[in-house]
């Protein structure tokens, strides 16, 4: 089943999402990228109802881009997160709400701090040192309680992430096979191989 993790460390946020696209019991695709780049220093991992996820993620992506074009500067992570949360909260009380869960990882270039926001389909939002969505969260969160270090270097952070992925692969019956991992820090966004 769909799983995504996020970890903050010293000046960075790591986002990881599995790459399977499933329909019922069938794996339709195994190289789907479920982490979108919203701005030079903002990443969004999305999961949930197929169809809703892509529609909502693209709507957010384009509106964040439009803000950047109009104002010549991007929204900072807290502002972007607040706006995205509001979009979901308003959608919740509409005729057909989006069923999309998000992890927003960003680096604030004005205060030089990494930010991670956990957002669910109801529009619940909270800032966290680490977070997860999906069945993997039941295994990964307790593991991260033990091993997460907010002052860890990128190498140490990736090692912790590997622990999460290994634990989920070991204990979850319907564990995903592959993950895509992206990092955001002062230099911007890049994909890393585990």
């Amino acid at each position: 089943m769909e799983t995504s993790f996020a970890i903050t460390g010293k000046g960075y946020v790591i986002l990881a999402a599995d790459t399977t696209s499933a329909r019922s019991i069938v794996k339709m695709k195994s190289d789907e990228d479920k982490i979108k780049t919203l701005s030079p220093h903002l990443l969004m991992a999305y999961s949930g109802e197929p169809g809703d996820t892509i529609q909502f993620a693209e709507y957010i992506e384009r509106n964040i881009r439009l803000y950047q074009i109009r104002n010549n500067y991007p929204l900072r992570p807290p502002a972007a997160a607040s706006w995205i949360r509001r979009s979901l909260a308003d959608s919740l009380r509409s005729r057909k709400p989006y069923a999309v869960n998000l992890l927003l990882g960003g680096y604030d270039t004005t205060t030089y701090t990494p930010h991670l926001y956990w957002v669910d389909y109801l529009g619940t939002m909270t800032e966290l040192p680490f977070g997860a969505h999906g069945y993997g969260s039941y295994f990964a969160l307790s593991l991260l309680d033990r091993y997460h270090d907010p002052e860890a270097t990128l190498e140490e952070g990736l090692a912790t992430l590997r622990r999460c992925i290994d634990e989920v692969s070991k204990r979850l019956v319907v564990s995903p096979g592959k993950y895509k991992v992206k990092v955001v820090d002062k230099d911007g966004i890049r994909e890393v191989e585990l």
Partner: protein
Amino acid sequence: MSIMEYNGGSVIAMVGKDCVAIASDLRLGNQALGISSNFQKIFPVTDRIYLGLPGLATDVTTLRELFRYRVNMYTIKEERDIEPETFAHLVSSTLYERRFGPFFIEPVMAGMSKTPSGGYKPFIAATDLIGCLNFAKDFVVAGTASSKLYGVAEGLWEPDLEPEDLFETISQTMLNAVDRDAYSGWGVIVHVMTKDKVITRTLKGRMD
């Protein structure tokens, strides 16, 4: 499974002698799974009003933003801060606007209101999710641990507590009630307000 218990969380407010106190837990959960141990449910409205919003977490954020907007508009139009009594009615009518599709929140307010003689007098109030006001003279509770909070507060609270004693009373009430509730806890925050200052303390509770 009730929507009011989906995220968990509790708030309490108490009256003392020329002071008020308001406290909440810091847990955000998804049913039994804990997500955050630093989710604020109490927000300052003016220098002399605090508002606690226990209930569904999405509505905590939405209502916080809505009240900030409405209080700002009031402040601009009236060119003065809103009084606690007036604010309580603003909360009530804002919730009743959604009578048939409510916000799943039971607000608790605490503040110091101005008296005609120029002094200040403690004020607390709470409403249900559709805005039915409850002006209590002793204490008000809300959230998933409300039944436990009633019991402990009934036993510990007494009239005319000084700020330090009120802090101790509200803190012990909160900590002990929250330990008996699976959906509340993971730390507590307490604000004690007197006529000229607010003291905010974060308490360490059981982290299980």
